[in-house]
Each structure stands twice: as C-alpha cells, then as structure tokens.
C-alpha cells in the first residue's frame, strides 16, 4: 500500500505544479525561485564538502569551539555580509557537510540575529550600504568557470560561488513572483489597539517578510507607514518583531534540501526568533522605554524612526541572546529529539554484542560470523557489479550460459551498495576487535579474520574499478574486446563457485590447502592472458586504448581473485584449531606456487 502511495505522490505533485504554472505566471516565478534557491543550497553544500578535513574546517572549528566564539563569528560575518539569511543558509550547509556541530551552528545563528541589526547602524552612522546581492551575477559566472577546473579546491570554490549566485537568483525570482501580492498589503486596514493589535501586526510582519523575502523591505514599508501615520509606533515595533521571525523562512527553505542536521538548525533558528518575538511583545512597553532612553542617550531625534527601530531591533535581539544562550544545551537536546534522522538504511551487526565479549572463543566466533555476513553481502555486490545475478553466479548453470544470459551491462550503484551493506558492518567489526580481550587481539585467528575483512574491501574496490570499462565493453560491437571482458567475468565466477564448493564442505576437509590449486590456476591464467593480450594488440583486433583498459582490468581481476582466495583462506577453519594452524603452516607460499608452475612449464 505504501509503495503504491509512494508511486502516486510524485506524479500528483508534478501534475498539480504543472496546472499551477499554467494558471498563474506569478506562481511559476515563485516556484522557479524556490527551485533555484534549493539548487543553490545543493551547490553550496557540495562546495563546502570539498573543504572538509582541510583548512576551512580547521578555521571553523577554531573559531566556533566556544560559545562566545560562535556568537562573535555570527555577528561579525553577518555584519560583513549584511544578510542574516545568507549566514543562516551557509551555516546550514556547514552543518550538513559535517564541518561544525549543532550547538556551534546555533551560536552562529544567534550571533547572526544580532549581526543583522548592525545594517541600520552602518547606514545611519557611516552612510555605508553593503549590497551583497549585487555580486550575485558575477559570482555565478566565476563559479561556473571554477567548477570546470580540475583542482578539487577550485572546483569546491566554484560550487560555493555558483551556490551563492543561485541563492540570490532564487530569491530574486521569488520576490518577482510575490510582487503581485505586494500591492495588497495596506497596513492601515489592520489598525487594532492593545495586545491583539501587537500580535496581529507581528503576524503581518511575518507574512510581509515571507512574501518579500527580505526583512529590510518590510522595515522600509514600516517606516513609510509610520511616517504617513497609518500605524502607531507600537504597531511598527510589532511589525519589526514579525519581520525578524519572518526572516527565518529563508533558513527553513534552505533546510528543505538539507539533512536532519540542517533541519535541526533551521528549527533552532525559528525557535530563537519566535521566543525572542514573544518576549519582545510581552515586554513591549519596557522595550519602548529602553529604546527612548538609549535614543536620548546617543542623541537620536524623537521622530527618527529609522534609527529608533534599529535600536529596538538590536535591543530585543540582544535580550533574545541573553535568554536563549543559557538554554542552548537544552535546545540542542530538544531539537535532536524532535527532528530525527531518517531510520538507518545501513546494515546493522547481528553477532557483535556485549555478551560475545565475555570469552575469547565467543568473541572470535562473533567476529567470524559477522565477517561471513559482510562476505555474503559482498557476493551480492560482486554479482551486480559484474552485471550478473547472484543466484546465477552460484548456480550449476554452465558459466557460458550465465554470461550469455547477462550479456547486457547493468546500471548498479556500487558505492551506494557499499555504504549500505558493507561499510557500517566493517566499521562495527573493527570497533569490536579493539574491545575483545587483549590476549585474543594478538591471536592468529583474529588477525586472519581482520585480514579477511581487508581482503573483502580490496575485492569490492577491484570490482568497482572493473565495472566502469566492463559495462562499456560487454556492450561493445568489437567481439574481441567483448570476449575478453566476458572471459574476465567467467574467471571470477569460476573461482567464486569453486570457493563456495570448498567452503561448503563438499571437498575433502583440508579447505585451506585446497585453495593452493586455485592460486596456481590464477598464476597460470595471468601468464596466458598476457600472451593473448599482446597478440590482440599486435593484430589490431583491439585499439591501444582498449588494450590499456584490458591490461589494467586484468590486473584488477587478478587482485579480485587473489583476494577472494585469501578471504576464504582466512575464514575457513578445520574442526580442531591445531589443524587449522597446521593447514596454514603447510599452505604454499607464492614462490612455492611459482616453482610448481615452472615445473609444469617444463
């Protein structure tokens, strides 16, 4: 049922949007604005991701590791950029990219709220107006040029510029779309006295800021309306409070395209602004007196509402910080509880539990069983990575028929499968190994199982490398290259089947030693393959490019097989421990296999 619903939801949304676009060009502009804005967020995140683990992360960590530092960081950056929304969305992308934590992010956002109030002071005091939006178009152009560069940092910088450009472009379109609604805002119609009036005007302030995507624009309307005496001074203050809350819409929009961390920050931003707004409305008279007092102190004229509003703005945001900063720990806790990560899609360990740690044998057995699970998941990835079906790979069907049945390349995201089915288990195994009793940690058995895990990872890496060219060449018109890649697939299937047979105990029970014969075949095949490859290139049946790919991929396949054998060798064990040890002692070394191979050649 949920699957059916899921299938219906997306087409329905698309259909409704299409109908809306057809009905209203304004709606189209707003929706396009939101889309461009979100695209900007994605680009910004992508850009900051390029700097993870580097100097930016270091700088951010150092400048936000204490609350006062993160607050100051927010104040200073917002003062420089003159846009708290921009600082908020950038902080969201920092958080999403894992550059900073939630409490540091909240500190920056709180600071940004205070930093944004400096705008009016800058204008009034120095006649200085920073309009970062003016740089949006050049940023877009520079950004796209930088994206085309191959250096990782430059590319990252390009994404950041382009992201900022798209953010402004998105906001521009949203504003354009809402332009039609602007005419409908006539503040005089809503003049109500007392607290109901204050709340109503605060709500209007929210709506106006959401619509115009700018708290500055709302402030301009407020000052105009105040000068025309359409509204009272108190109502103007309420509007300013509303504008402060409404400005969080940009962060909320930004968080839509973000992960749970970003959403938690946007939630924190909203809570901060709403709480601050409530407090400001409740104590409006005290704030008013405070503003008058400060204005008189610094010599602001009785009717200089621009500066008086700036004083008010600064005052209530400062009050908000004083109230909220002591509660920041609780706020983090609350946000993490309310806005949770989507249920994990990653594999969860089944055998690694506390009770298994009690004894050496149980600990080793738990690690072995978990590793076997990793290996089992890896088989699925190997099969799909080679464009095969797992059941066919392990079946009794002749390998040629399996290859024929799967002659088309399969689109398979190996990285995603690795993240989902392997990485978390592998991580849990490594962690568990560090917790087992010390005498077990140095045992041959555990060290072999650890090596088996590394072997599995190497196999998957090999399959990933192989997949790229293989998917291209098994669909190729050139029969020679196609056959060679199918030969690689066959070889891997043959080895996997053989290992499965040895592991399942159908062979006489010297499993570890049975692998030596496979190693010999591997070495022999490698020699034969190299000779055939040379012939193919010499006779121009394949191009030089194909030859290079084939040489590289043959090496990958060699590594895959070698590591597959090694996984089995490290995971198989005889009934008695002494026998397993003896088998490992007797197993032939590489040079011993080579001498058998040489004898064969004679």
């Amino acid at each position, binding site marked *: 049922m949920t699957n059916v619903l899921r299938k219906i939801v997306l087409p329905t949304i698309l259909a409704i949007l299409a109908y809306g676009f057809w009905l209203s060009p304004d709606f189209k502009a707003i929706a396009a604005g939101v889309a461009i804005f979100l695209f900007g967020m994605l680009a910004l995140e992508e850009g900051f991701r390029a700097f993870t683990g580097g100097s930016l992360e270091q700088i951010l960590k150092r400048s936000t590791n204490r609350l006062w530092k993160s607050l100051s960081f927010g104040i200073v950056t917002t003062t420089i950029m003159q846009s708290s929304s921009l600082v908020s969305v950038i902080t969201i992308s920092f958080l999403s990219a894992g550059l900073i934590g939630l409490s540091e992010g909240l500190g920056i956002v709180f600071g940004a709220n205070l930093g944004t109030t400096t705008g009016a002071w800058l204008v009034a005091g120095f006649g200085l107006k920073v309009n970062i939006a003016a740089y949006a178009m050049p940023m877009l152009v520079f950004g796209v040029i930088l994206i085309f560069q191959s250096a990782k940092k430059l590319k990252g910088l390009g994404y950041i510029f382009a992201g900022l450009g798209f953010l402004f472009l998105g906001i521009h379109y949203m504003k354009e779309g809402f332009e039609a609604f602007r005419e409908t805002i006539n503040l005089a119609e809503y003049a109500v006295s007392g607290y109901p009036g204050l709340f109503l005007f605060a709500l209007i302030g929210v709506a106006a800021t959401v619509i115009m995507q700018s708290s500055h624009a709302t402030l301009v309307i407020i000052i105009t309306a105040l000068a025309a005496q359409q509204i009272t001074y108190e109502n103007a203050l309420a509007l300013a409070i509303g504008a402060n809350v409404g400005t969080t819409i940009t962060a909320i929009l930004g968080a839509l395209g973000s992960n749970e961390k970003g959403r938690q920050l946007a939630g924190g931003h909203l809570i901060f602004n709403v709480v601050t707004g409530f407090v400001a409305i409740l104590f409006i008279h005290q704030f008013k007196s405070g503003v008058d007092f400060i204005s008189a102190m610094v010599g602001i004229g009785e009717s200089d509402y621009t500066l008086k509003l700036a004083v008010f703005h600064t005052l209530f945001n400062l009050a908000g910080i004083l109230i909220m900063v002591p509660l920041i720990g609780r706020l983090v806790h609350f946000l993490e509880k309310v806005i949770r990560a989507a249920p994990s899609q990653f594999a969860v360990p089944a055998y690694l539990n506390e009770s298994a740690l009690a004894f050496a044998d149980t600990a080793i057995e738990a690690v072995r069983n978990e590793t076997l699970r990793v290996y089992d998941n890896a088989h699925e990835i190997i099969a799909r990575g080679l464009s095969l079906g797992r059941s066919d790979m392990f079946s009794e069907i002749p390998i040629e028929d399996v290859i024929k049945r799967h002659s088309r390349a399969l689109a398979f995201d190996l990285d995603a499968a690795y993240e989902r089915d392997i990485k978390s288990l592998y991580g849990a195994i490594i962690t568990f190994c560090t917790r087992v009793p010390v005498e077990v940690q140095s045992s041959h058995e555990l060290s072999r199982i650890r090596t088996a895990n590394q072997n599995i990872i190497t196999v998957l890496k090999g399959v990933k490398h192989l997949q790229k060219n293989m998917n291209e060449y098994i669909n190729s018109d050139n029969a020679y290259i196609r056959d060679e890649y199918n030969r690689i697939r066959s070889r891997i299937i043959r080895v996997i089947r053989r290992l499965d047979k040895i592991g399942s105990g159908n062979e006489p029970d010297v499993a570890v030693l049975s692998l*030596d014969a496979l190693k010999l075949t591997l070495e022999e095949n490698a020699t034969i393959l190299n000779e055939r490859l040379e012939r193919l290139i010499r006779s121009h049946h394949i191009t030089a490019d194909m030859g290079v790919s084939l040489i590289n991929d043959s090496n990958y396949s060699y590594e895959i097989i070698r590591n597959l054998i090694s996984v089995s060798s490290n995971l198989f064990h005889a009934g008695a421990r002494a026998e397993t040890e003896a088998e490992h002692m007797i197993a032939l070394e590489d040079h011993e296999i080579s001498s058998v191979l040489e004898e064969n050649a004679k």
Partner: protein
Amino acid sequence: MKLRKLLKKLNDYLNEDEKQLQDKDDGLSSVLKKLKIKEMDIQHKIEIEMDEDERKFLEQELKIVHSQREKGIHLLSEMRGRKNVQKPEEQNPA
C-alpha cells in the same frame, strides 16, 4: 582412569610449551593423513577422467597436494627433531 586424566591435565598445565608443540605435532600429522587420502583420491580420479582439460587440472592439483605433503613432512620432522633436542637439555640443564 580419572586420576590418569587429571594427572595428564596437570602435566599439560605445568609443561605449556611442550603441550603446544604436541598440539602442533598432532595437527600436522592429522592434516598430513588427510592430504595422503586426498592425493590417492586425485590419483584415482585422474585414472578414470576422460576429459583432457579436467585431467590436466587434476594433475596440477596432484602436484600441489604433493608439494604440500612434502612441506608438511619437512615441517613435522623439523619439529620432532627440535623436540628431541630439547628433551635431553631439559634432563641435563647443566
């Protein structure tokens, strides 16, 4: 019988190194026995195998098993030699 078992356990406990060597000896002997059976089994398979490729593969496997047995026998005799050298030393530490 029970007393003898107990005494063996006590002896094992007191002579940990010797027990480890004995375990290794037992393990190697057991694997060598299995390898001998496997060698004979492969030889038999080669005799009745009609397919040329498969026979070749079996012959290779036979060589491998043979090399493994040689290595195992060498290891075992080396270990037993060491054991024999150790014993008189233990008796006459001076």
